[in-house]
């Protein structure tokens, strides 16, 4: 069997592979030995080690949020405008619809005030600081999705926006055939019947007096 495999070159190829792999391993060991003795590698390693002790570069790190301006971000202004447009025509005392009532019913960790009072505040140009606090530096490095909700009421506002942008379908009602339509169909049918009768009546009449003249 081995002779057969050798004759078709099977063992030769695996033997070649084995030699190559052995050569690769030997070279890898030789490389590591050369690295140990090489002053060039020591110099490069020392360079890296000194870089470890250097202070972290400023440009590579994102700017800490605390140093940024505390002005209202643009997206907050846009959202506030949307909310004003959505709620402004309604009287302030009117409660939200049952569909959106779930928003205020949702357990929110942001604040105990209902959403309507926030909208009223936006409408009067009052921006509750609790909704737009600038997150701390640790938010950048340790972002946790549930924590975002504590700072910005994304979920209730997002669900409200979704509700407003996708109006509910009206209740399905099957269309009823109105009387005038039925009347038209009935009239048309009557006309057709009359035409048929009128057209065939003389033929039918003539059949009665038609004498074939067949005598038995």
């Amino acid at each position, binding site marked *: 069997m081995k002779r057969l495999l050798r004759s078709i070159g099977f063992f030769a190829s695996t033997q070649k592979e084995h030699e190559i792999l052995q*050569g*690769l391993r030997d070279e*890898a060991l030789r490389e590591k030995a050369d690295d140990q003795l090489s002053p060039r590698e*020591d110099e490069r390693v020392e360079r*890296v080690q000194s870089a*470890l002790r250097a202070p972290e570069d400023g440009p590579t790190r994102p700017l800490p949020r605390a140093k940024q301006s505390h002005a209202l971000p643009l997206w907050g202004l846009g959202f506030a405008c949307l909310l004003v447009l959505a709620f402004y025509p309604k009287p302030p005392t009117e409660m939200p619809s049952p569909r959106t009532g779930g928003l205020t019913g949702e357990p929110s960790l942001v604040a105990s005030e209902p959403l309507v009072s926030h909208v009223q505040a936006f409408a009067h140009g009052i921006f509750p600081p609790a909704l737009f606090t600038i997150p701390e530096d640790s938010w950048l490095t340790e972002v946790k999705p549930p924590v975002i909700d504590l700072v910005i009421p994304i979920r209730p506002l997002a669900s409200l926006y979704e509700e407003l942008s996708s109006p509910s379908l009206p209740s399905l009602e099957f269309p009823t055939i109105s009387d005038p339509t039925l009347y038209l169909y009935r009239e048309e049918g009557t006309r057709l019947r009359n035409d048929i009768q009128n057209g065939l009546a003389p033929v039918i009449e003539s059949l009665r007096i038609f004498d074939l003249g067949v005598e038995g």
Partner: protein
Amino acid sequence: MLSIITQPAANPYSCASDEELGSLARKGRVEAFDELVRRHWAGINRFLLGYLPHGSSEDVAQEAFLRAFRKIELYEEGKPFTPWLFTIARRLALNAIRGRNRRREVPFPDRPVEEQSPEEPLCFGPLWQFAKDRLSANAYAALRLHYAEDLPIEEVARVLDKNKIAVKVMLHRARRRLSKFSAQLKETQTT
């Protein structure tokens, strides 16, 4: 003997394993991480040469060690350290490649096209040089990790973000490809 002459006084961390050094580095021992750099600098550099030219590979290797040191708290104690380090290096190499493709660097007419580091390149065996030139980056990386760094197939798969079977197929094909050029390989070995 030569190693005693060239190296400074005995390093207390030289006998510790990579995992022990990683644990010490997590506790703030910079000297422990220094030893890790000393051990793996050349291996990381040679690994990255499969993806990047010489000058870029050194930059990325340095960045890989810095990144690993700054994110040492992400290293899980007890788990193998080398695959974690090589994973960081590989991801940085891929980022560097993407960055180069986006920038589409156009060299000045009087500068050579390839980057040329003024320093000497790493010592590379002829077989490995041949493998680096003839194989794809991933195939070379798999060979390097398995046969030079002695990582098991599972760890190689983790570093390369592939499954074990894909890595085994990659290694098999790399071996076959190299064996096809065995005549040329023998010539490079004799020269």
